[in-house]
């Protein structure tokens, strides 16, 4: 008997996903938004692994690896953008200030 049943894992993944979603909606700091995205990605990856374990298929973990690569790319590019914005003299990392075209936010 495994420690986790499939149902429990899905429950866990759902809760973690919701926490990430709430985080991305609440936080205005872009670093925190990226972290929230990572939490959501982890929740989905967990569902893949759980499904793979449930039906005894290696595809679940293959998808996990792919999600990992996706998260790595997303984080690298996102952090790069944050650095770029910071270097261009934007005073805060407020995501809401970058709402106008031409890079001139209201912040």
């Amino acid at each position, binding site marked *: 008997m495994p420690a986790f049943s499939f149902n429990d894992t899905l429950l866990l993944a759902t809760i973690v996903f919701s926490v990430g979603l709430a985080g991305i909606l609440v936080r205005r700091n872009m670093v925190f*938004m990226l972290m929230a995205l990572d939490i959501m990605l982890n929740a989905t990856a967990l569902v893949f692994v759980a499904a793979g374990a449930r039906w005894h298929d290696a595809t679940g973990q293959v998808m996990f690896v792919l999600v990992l690569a996706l998260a790595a790319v997303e984080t690298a590019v996102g952090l790069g953008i944050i650095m770029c914005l910071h270097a261009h003299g934007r005073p805060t990392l407020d995501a809401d200030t970058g709402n106008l075209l031409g890079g001139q936010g209201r912040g």
Partner: protein
Amino acid sequence: MGEILLPLLILCPLVASMIISVSAGRVGTCAIGAIACVGVGLSAILGIILSVMLLSGPAAGVLPVVLWRWIHVAGFSADIALTLDRVSMVMVLVVTVVGLLIHVYAVGYMREDPGIARFFSCMTLFVAAMLVLVLASDLLCLFIGWEGVGLCSYLLIGFWYDDPANTAAARKAFYMTRMGDAALLCGLLLLATAAGSLHIGAVLAAVADGQVAPSGVNVAALFILVGALAKSAQVPFQTWLPDAMAGPTPTSALIHAATMVTAGVYLIARLHDLFAMAAPVMALTAVLGTLTLLMAACTAMVQSDLKRILAWSTISQLGYMFLALGCGVWQAALFHLMTHAFFKALLFLTAGAVIMRAGHEQDIFRLGGLRHAMPGLTAAFVVGASALAGLPLVTAGFYSKEMILSGVWHVHFGLTREWTLSGHPLWGMALLGAFLTALYIFRCVFIVFCGKPGTVATGRTSRLMGIPLGCLCFLSLCGGVIEMPDTLPPLHLFTALLDPKTPLSHADEPVWLVLAGALAPLAGLGVARVLWGRAAPVMREIPGQAAITRLARAGWGMDALYDLVFVQPFRLLTWLAHHDILDQAITGTGRMTRAISGRVFRARAGFLDKLAVWGTRARGWAGHLLGRLDNGRVRWYAAWIAGGLCAGLAMAVLS
């Protein structure tokens, strides 16, 4: 044996190109030229060996080589495969032999240029791509070669990229041929969906079996025709070729006269069975070819740039080939393609040598009287000019043009059941074109080589440049005797070579037909001698020159057409994108709301007043929400996504 030699035929120039591009800057000029010549020369030798093998085999023999399977999915498959049959054999010989002569010439011509390695790597790459185009037995594989030659053409037109005019010409050529390529690809996709394969034999069999609907055949043939027209610079795509003369002269000779521009002719000749089923497209081909040959001949008459005259004459001669294709005498088109490759390469190379020795002067009115300074080049140019004009009996051009003319005379276009079109008017126009051809090319000869001395010639033509000119002279004079009209000794080597079973019949050909074809260039020569042959020309400008020049400068109205067809719709699209419709609608809604609520406020009466306040408030909220929809803030977008997801899940849960 043949299975090994055939890929080697393509590999030799390709490897030479790679070696040159890798070793650029590390080996000397002579070594680069030697590598290029050896690569193309090996290819030419292999081509001759393979031709002998093919001809010694059975009459209808082909040499197919499947290299590997490229695409294989349900309903479609494509191979990387080569086929040497008799049609492609002729083309291979033309490409490799003329290519070798031009390469040898180019070693002498480009000796001083710092970019010689780039030049030769592009040239050899071009030969390889052209051989892929010629030998491919699969239309998709042919398309690779088709794009490859377009790329090399672009690279070589813009070879001297310091001058913005040259790069502009290169881009123009690239864009114009690209439009045709898109059309060609559409045609190929149509054929592929109908026939399930793009193997030429399979496609033709499917068309012959009636697997493809007649309308489908017509549309596919039309698309392929557009592709061929763009590649061969025919009406309405003719404007790129004269500008393409910005490249080095050997490029003009090899790519823009002898081989690449004839790729369209070759493609249609390969697919002649397909085109035979599409009668309207055939008639269109013939009419466009006739239009092109007359228009280009008229334009060549008023040009003063030596290379541009030759470029327009190339367009005109390609018009003859398209006329022949449209009339169904594809053997004549291929024959003219071969002789044209000989004499046009000769003309271009001679013109290049003349221009080089006259201090890079291209205006024919500033040249002049060069007969005494360079007798050898004069002889070569006169030989090329007579072959182009088709002076009877002694030149190759006469026989090929005669074959086209007699083919046009006999043709009948069965457009519909009751309405047929005779080829006689087209024959008349082609004959007029022959007269004009002789007129403009001998105008050029008389002005450049006779008359008052203009520029001072310097230097000598090196032997490396002289030998290819001699060989091309021989081919231009004697290359045509392998096929003669029946009125003369009935000799049909060329048509027998192409199709041993059903040779083209020249029977019931009136004698006066050949006679007319022979007299037209002679008349042109005579008129040119009268007008420009004296020391003081009777007329420097022909009547109506100003009008034609203006028309030609405006691209015969084609630029306006391109503007209307391609540029304006694009500008409309960008205008639409700039004035966002959705944005306008939202702004308009807001403005309307404000106006309405203003009116309602003004009513100011009891319940109505209250209603107005509520209404305004509600509309304000709605506008607020609408504004939130695209306020540019990422968090709101995420919220909208989450909300939509919630709603979708709710629908899934509640249903």
